[in-house]
């Protein structure tokens, strides 16, 4: 299981890109951290999630 934004998700073996697409995020509006390290957008497709990973997808909304 992968902890994604604080919740356990069965996402073992899929890539960050697959998770983001399946969850309807717009990549232009997000930052992704895996185990507290930023994941470069160029690496979304090659980063494979595994059991015990902690993924944080920050979806920025407008206003300031």
């Amino acid at each position, binding site marked *: 299981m992968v902890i994604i934004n604080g919740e356990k998700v069965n996402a073992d073996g899929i890539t960050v890109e697959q998770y983001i697409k399946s969850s309807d995020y717009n990549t*232009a*509006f*997000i*930052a992704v*951290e895996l185990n*507290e*390290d*930023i994941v*470069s*957008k160029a690496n979304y497709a090659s980063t494979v999630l595994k059991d015990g990973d902690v993924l*944080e997808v*920050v*979806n*920025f*909304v*407008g*206003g*300031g």
Partner: protein
Amino acid sequence: MIPNKNEMIAAYEARHGKELQKKLSAATVAVCGLGGLGSNISIALSRAGIGKLILIDFDKVDISNLHRQQYKANQIGLPKTEALSCNLSEIAPYTVVETHCVKITEENAVDLLSGADIICEAFDNPQAKAMLANTVLEKLPGKFYVGASGMAGIGSTNEIKTKRLSKFFYLCGDGVSEVGKSEGLFAARVMACAAHQAHTVIRILAGQYDV
């Protein structure tokens, strides 16, 4: 009569303690975007006696800003960098202010921000927010980053929170209240989020890293 620098420092030290004030006076903080968040963050930090602020925005003061941003009606049309540095000089005359009237991009961010100890993201555009978070966290490792997301609407200010997402990455806001999908932006709620950001900066400088 404007107090001299030693009198100002003594006044800061009396309130913050000598040891903490030394850290605040030695710090350089960048504020990216000088709208509702950035103008309020800058005022809070200059009042706290932060040594140097790097203020970055490409925009001019507009009538539509006055309901929440720290500008005056007679400043409409001025670059925000110029108007804010003028207002800050009246509040905290010994805070060093560096201004850049430019749009921050992936290409210029490192040059603009490498001199800062802590970077506050205070944009309104969500794409720009994501761009800066990605750029700073990837290209400027070891810099503290304090971003914001979700402060529009008339929802309770108690929903505004500070989260520490990783060692150097803090995010303030309610995470969801988006401009355009709610009643717009209200000064006090935006100020609450700006206050979270400014106080996070002060806590980091004080070595209080938890939230």
